[in-house]
């Protein structure tokens, strides 16, 4: 159907968009969403490799399962921190949480 390269390029694009999101946006929650995008791209990459190159071991798919699991756990924790941050400073902007400067 579609060659492997397509999947790889697609995941590369999603990953780069996620990187841009992490670096460029101000809202903490939005940064976390971009991280989710990146993790998705990675999972897609793994599963694509598993499907095309790895006949019997499906390690890629298993890996993707674990990635999804850990991503879910991590997002929960990260949002808890963001909520805490919001409670302390009444803002969810990462630019304004800069008290650990020199």
């Amino acid at each position, binding site marked *: 159907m579609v060659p492997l390269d397509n999947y790889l390029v697609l995941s590369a694009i999603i990953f780069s968009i996620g990187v841009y999101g992490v670096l460029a946006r101000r809202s903490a929650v939005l940064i976390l969403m971009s991280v989710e995008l990146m993790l998705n791209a990675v999972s897609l990459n793994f599963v694509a490799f598993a499907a095309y190159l790895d006949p019997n071991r499906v390690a890629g798919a298993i890996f993707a399962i674990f990635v999804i699991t850990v991503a879910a756990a991590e997002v929960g924790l990260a949002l808890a921190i963001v909520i805490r941050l919001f409670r302390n400073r009444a803002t969810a902007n*990462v630019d304004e949480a*800069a008290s650990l*400067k020199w």
Partner: protein
Amino acid sequence: MGAEQAWLLAAVPAGMFVVLALFGRLLPRKGDFLGVLAIGTAFVLFFFVLHDFLHVGESNWPVVRDIKWSDIGSFHLRMGIVVDQITIVMFAVITTVALMVNVFSIGYMKGEPRYWWFFAVLQLFAASMLMLVMADNLLLLYISWELVGVCSFLLIGFYWEKRSATEAAKKAFITTRVGDVGLLIGIILLYKATGTFNIREIIDHAKSGDIGSTYLFVSMCFVFLGAMGKSAQVPFHVWLPDAMEGPTPVSALIHAATMVVAGVYLTARMLPVFEVAHGTTLIITIVGLVTALLTGFMALAQTDIKKVLAYSTVGQLGFMFVALGCGRPDAAMFHLMTHAFFKALLFLGSGSVILGTHHNQEMGKLGGLWKKMPVTGTTFLVGSLALAGVVPLAGFWSKDEILAATQTWSGGWVTILLGFAAIMTAFYSTRLFIRTFLGKPLDQQVYDHTHESPAVMTLPLVFLAILAAVAGLVVFNGVGRALGFPGGITEFVFLEEPERYHIVWSLAGGSVVLAVVGIFFGAWMYWGGSLVRSTRAAEFQPRLYEMIQRKFYFDELYQGMIDRVVLGFSFVVSWFDRYVVNDTGVDGSAQMTGYSGFLLKHLQTGKVPNYAMGIALGVVALAAAGLVVRG
């Protein structure tokens, strides 16, 4: 006990040094008798060594004994002793004079502070000097060389409460240090060329032509620098007259008979190498000649009796170097021996005068002392005549041998100049004797309180006077053989071939004439105690007289050099140390670190996005680098 145990001669005084240094204060009489005992033992042991040496016969000379000292990788060092003819002569001189000086010091140093320390350092000195003349390798020789320098320093500065004494000690040490550095450089150069420190091996290497001639010339010049420093040859002579600040027995032992002749000994020992290095023997001769002449002049204008003898010593050392430069170590060692006896005698005699007149050394306050100090006067007369070279006293024979040696230089100019120096020697020794012992006393106060010295001091004087009288006779083959030697001293000590002694009547007659002329001139100038003629002579050419009296301005020259050159250079070095090393290097690097920290802290913005950017940039950079490297 044989010649192979000769190291005991040095070990006994060394051990006594330790005992006296640690316990001298607590011993009865502060241990002076122990000092005499130690040197006396060395003196007695010398006869055993001598007997054994003569016994084993010429085919077994020299007697050598060494031990393995160090074995590191490819570096092998053996240290040991060698007893040959030169060593025997030096042993005789050192043990005899050291014994006489130790006995004399019991009387002279009575009541002085640190009496025990004096004897301790005398022992250390004797041990080091004996080790120096026994050393079979240059390393051991250099160690002993430095040790005798240290003892000289300690003893010149014995009365360290006096500023002039400490200055003199410093001057002596620093001046000889300059020479010693030259010696060290020479030793290292020779080691690099031959791979050994052993003297006999170096001589063999040099003789078989293993060493390049320019290289050998340079290294031997450096070695000779060391000899010049220690033996106070021009231009290193400035320290010896100042060294008279030390107690007189020290002057007698170290600065007349033993330490200052270390340079002569070294040159004699290495003479085969000097002969191979063309040009060095000419340098040695010229240095000795210039020294003999200049110091002869300087002695004419001195009024301190010890200073006259100091300049005389330097001049006589010049004579010995001239002999060495002519390739006659036998003449040099012979003169070394006779000079040691009569110069030590003269110094101890002046010590007796100093003690007897209650510390007066200036000739301006002396005169007519013969009546009050007959023994001192008589022995002093013997010494002065020996110094002047009057037959049949010892000095005549050795000086004659040296004059004979100078005949190797064509044109006779060396002989003539040395003869002139000999005339001056006779002149100033006569002057010294007459102004001190004859004529009218110049200071009645001093004269009234003068007394003869005790027996402990006069007996060494008598013994040395006897030696000064008869020691010269060993030059005769018959006398030598009667004593057990294979012949006279010229047959005993030799460079290439033993030489039977025969008198050259013309030369001998010439030497007698020189001595007589000098004495006559001195007597004419100073007889009767009136200084009229001498003051007229001084006023005849006041500028010349002043130049001689100011010792040709050597001290002023050196002081100027130190002030300008040395201190100027040290100013540059200290500037470099302060501004470049300290401010820039040490302080600067610390400040650089602090400043870079100050600049770098701005990286810590505290903003998470900045840190995330850092991570992303790092990843991109690594990936790009990986791509570039892997293609």
